[in-house]
């Protein structure tokens, strides 16, 4: 037997499968994440730069919002995708701090890289980071300042401060006083139990100046397509009754598959009359309810428009579903799918209804709604991209205010909180022996990336300011942070740079989870994508989604 010949390669996996293992792979994953962090870090903070992105369809997006940028970056690297996920999670959970979370996660990995290069087992680093994150979150709870929300007057003041901090880092910082008021008002009109931010509608109207934007306490939507007779309808009502329908008010076949067979000419005329009678009976029923404003999800045709105009009733068809839902939320009543049996309780009302010109468009405005748990922001501005960015910024600010209201714990922004945590962790690390000391200190160093980046983006000397900050914090100045105005250090709590503490704790936890996840990977196995012989993914056979989830159709019988 001729054993022990030259080693012959045995192929276990499919050709095209790329697998790489070991420390090299870990380092390459870290490098990929650090590269992503480098892309996004310049947008952090009030003086961060914006990014202009052109997607594959040539659409231009200008943004400063971390989550938006990450989403549009179209990252394919499997490890770096994790960072996209945490930005998205942060966006969904707290709305703001999306850039911080990516920058911080990247920095944690950057710190870990030196350890990995030195041959430290990544599990030890993970343990250290997890411990540090827990400590940091507990410390946030400890230092956060409880807002007294009982006083109505003060409440607004406090919320304004949180909103303006969130907005300072965005495109609209120059108008922040104007917009903060708007945002705080908007959130305060919501149902305070529920705080469902979907109830704040945002409408974009290009043209005009940013200050022309307005907040409608109630609902506003763009005038829908209308038929002849619309001009004769009144456009202003006081205390009208409002009826919301999901009915098509037009002459039409009652049922698609119905067929009429007539044997007499006279019958024919009767049928035509009957069709008219059907629609008139619907219209009569509507008029009989006493409603003055009739809205429908489905079209309202010529005939109905004219009929309503004759009876001084305003109508609008093809109202978008979410707009109509918000109308119902604001004015009360409910959406009706039939015209018969409409009772008083199904109608809503409001103080004033009016159709008004805003910019180049006409808007229907419902104001002074009794159940006003909703409001609408109408944004004006020069360019489409610009308004889109304003919308994103406002969304962030709305979320911040919402969280401030919900948890009413705040910390100082501008890197102050991070510096304090960093100091706390550094002090803590000195009390423990063993390797963990290094990792907790590394975590503490990573936290400093936020103030450092704030300085860098603003063009300050970060080393200098950071040294000042460390000194201040060592002296016990808990809220010393970067001061953007004076290019120095200031007590950011007194300067009212406030952020809800949930933003910080969520960012730290998410970033740590992502960083530890990436550190725990030592191998990437990539199968070659299979060419799909059938049509593109749009038309998958039923059950395909399930199969994809399980992978390869060898589903587990669970």
């Amino acid at each position, binding site marked *: 037997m001729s054993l022990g010949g030259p080693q012959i390669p045995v192929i276990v996996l499919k050709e095209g*499968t790329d697998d790489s293992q070991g420390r090299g792979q870990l380092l390459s994953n870290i490098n990929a994440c650090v590269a992503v962090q480098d892309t996004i870090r310049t947008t952090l903070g009030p003086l961060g730069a914006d990014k202009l992105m052109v997607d594959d369809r040539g659409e231009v997006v200008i943004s400063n919002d971390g989550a938006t940028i990450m989403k549009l970056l179209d990252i394919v690297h*499997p490890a770096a995708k994790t960072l996209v996920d945490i930005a998205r999670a942060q966006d969904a*959970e707290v709305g703001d701090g999306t850039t911080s979370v990516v920058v911080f996660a990247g920095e944690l990995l950057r710190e870990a890289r030196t350890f990995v290069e030195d041959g430290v087992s990544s599990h030890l680093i993970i343990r250290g980071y997890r411990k540090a994150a827990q400590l940091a979150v507990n410390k946030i709870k400890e230092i956060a300042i409880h807002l007294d929300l009982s006083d109505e007057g003060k409440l607004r003041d406090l919320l304004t401060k949180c909103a303006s901090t969130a907005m300072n880092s965005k495109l609209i910082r120059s108008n922040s006083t104007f917009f903060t008021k708007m945002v705080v008002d908007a959130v305060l009109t919501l149902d305070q139990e529920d705080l469902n931010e979907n109830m704040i509608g945002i409408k974009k109207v290009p043209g005009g100046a940013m200050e022309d934007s307005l907040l409608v306490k109630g609902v506003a939507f763009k005038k829908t397509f209308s038929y002849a007779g619309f001009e004769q309808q009144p456009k202003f009502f006081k205390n009208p009754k409002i009826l919301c329908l999901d009915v098509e008010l037009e002459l039409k076949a009652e049922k698609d*598959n*119905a067929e*009429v067979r007539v044997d007499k000419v006279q019958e024919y005329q009767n049928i035509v009359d009957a069709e008219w009678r059907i629609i008139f009976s619907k219209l009569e029923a509507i008029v009989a309810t006493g409603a003055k404003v009739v809205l429908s999800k489905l079209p309202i045709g010529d005939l109905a428009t004219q009929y309503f105009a004759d009876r001084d009733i305003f109508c609008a068809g093809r109202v978008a579903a979410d707009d109509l839902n918000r109308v119902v939320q604001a004015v009360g009543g409910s959406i009706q799918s039939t015209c018969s049996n409409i009772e008083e309780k199904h109608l809503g009302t409001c103080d004033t209804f009016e159709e008004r010109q805003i910019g180049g468009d006409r808007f229907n405005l419902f104001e002074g709604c009794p159940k006003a748990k909703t409001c609408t922001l109408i944004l004006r501005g020069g360019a489409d991209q610009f308004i889109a960015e304003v919308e994103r910024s406002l969304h962030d600010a709305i979320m911040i205010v919402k969280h401030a209201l919900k948890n009413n714990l705040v910390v100082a922004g501008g890197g102050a909180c991070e510096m304090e945590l960093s100091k706390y962790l550094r002090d803590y690390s000195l009390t423990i022996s063993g390797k963990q000391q290094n990792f907790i200190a590394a975590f503490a160093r990573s936290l400093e990336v936020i103030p450092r980046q704030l300085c860098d983006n603003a063009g300050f000397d970060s080393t200098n300011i950071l040294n000042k900050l460390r000194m201040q914090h060592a002296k016990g100045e808990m809220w010393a942070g970067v001061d953007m105005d004076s290019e120095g250090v200031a007590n950011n709590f007194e300067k009212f740079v406030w952020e809800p503490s949930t933003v910080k704790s969520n960012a730290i*936890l998410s970033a740590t989870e992502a960083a530890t*996840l990436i550190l725990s990977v030592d191998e990437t196995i990539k*199968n070659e994508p299979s060419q799909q012989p059938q049509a593109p993914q749009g038309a998958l056979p039923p059950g395909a989604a399930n199969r994809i989830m399980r992978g390869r159709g*060898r589903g587990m019988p669970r």
Partner: protein
Amino acid sequence: MALRVPKASGPQLFREGYRIMQGVEDAVIRNCNAIRELSEITRTSLGPNGKNKIVVNHLQQTFLTNDAATIIRELEVIHPAAKLVVDATQQQENELGDAANFVVVFTGELLAKAENMIRMGLTPLEIAKGYEMALSHTMEVLEEICADKIETVESEKELIKAIRTCISSKQYGNEDFLSDLVAKAILTVLPKDPSKFNVDNIRVVKIMGSSLYNSQVVKGMVFPREPEGTVTRSKEAKVAVFSCPLDISQTETKGTVLLHNAQEMLDFSKGEENLIESHIKEIYDAGVRVVVTSGNVNDLVLHYLNRFEILVIRVPSKFELRRLCRVVGATPLARMGVPMPEEMGSVDVVETIEIGGDRVTVFRQVEDITRTATIVLRGATKTYLDDLERAIDDGVNIVKALVKDNRLIFGAGASDMQLCIRLISVGEKTPGIYQHAIKQYGEAFEVVPRTISENAGLDPTDVISKLYAAHHKENGESIGVDVECENDGTLDAKEAGIFDVLLAKKSAIRLATETVLTVLNVDQVVMSKPAGGPKPPGPNPHWDDD
């Protein structure tokens, strides 16, 4: 010798393109190599300090996990012998959930030892026979070294004891929190007779955002969607479940409504509304306050449901619908109509709550033992959540094994070490050539503590020798590898509370050994030429390059 016998050579026997490998060198050794290569991949994922892998499958889906069953499933193994291992892993995963990686690693190690013995001159059949004998000894030994018992699965503390080790091998660092969650969930659904426990009754809903430590157990079922209508909460309600869309019944046969005169037309449109209204009214009068459907809800139907203040929710998945039926005790109806009293279910509370940014609907029974519990997982990334779900699945599966056999053995490589020592001594007492195979089989168990310590960054040789020393002492059978590496790399598994489930171990050893026996018994591999037509993705004609 004038007679010439035509030579039946390979190329004439088979069609062209067939590949034959035979003999010890070509078939057995190569198969061993292939499987060893596979086990090298998953080896680094064994144990609490096992590394994660990112697997991107051919559909470009990303898996980030250290669960061997998932890794191997997504790898697309093409080697025929290595595929046997894949099947064995899947079986272990499906039946017991735990120790899937052990199957792969142990198979690889057994074959590595077998390869050495073949080179020494033993025949594969002798080795196979020896392994078989060793297997039966192992089973006996396992019965002897049983360390502890789960007295009752109804106690949270006892449950955690078993679940913790299983979860810590997947999610080290979070095992306390996760095993707590799993134990709580299990206890909420555990029937009076634990052997009737159904793993299907524990659901996992993943909601991105926040962190793991905000995960919670919800009694009842959680659907990540809102009710369709305006009613969002209901209490002590009767439930009707429809497996059809809520719509006016349509005829399957193509039909048209024939109208003869105007009056008929007028009545027709009225009739439709009245029909639905009367339908809904009947349902309402029957006491139903919550309607669940798997299909769409017609606008008009929704309108009347809202009028009668009946809560309506869509559950598109048939499986979820079935589970919901079990929770509320309802029979799904295939057409819209009034359910019989016995077809209706009841639920204590249905409500819409906000978890993170998402609104979810909860069906909850207030009574102590509900039939379904849902673990709402929170986490920063999707891949992370998926991995957590797998860890939870494993944890839940352990209970299934526990109700069958409640015995535990020491974890952390302690029981493997004990098996190793005992088998070697058995081997030494066995006369004949099988002695080698049995001894080698015993030594193969060494791979577990060695890999665990390797992954933990310890010096494996050092740890192994310490373990040998400890296990030869009195009362040393609980000494295992200390992944925290605080002392000298060893710890007492009993004190640390690291236990494995006996049944899982048994089944894993058996599966691994059976795979090895199959591989050893193969002496010829015949591969047909891949058929023509559209090529399967990336075929490699030289699958086993010479």
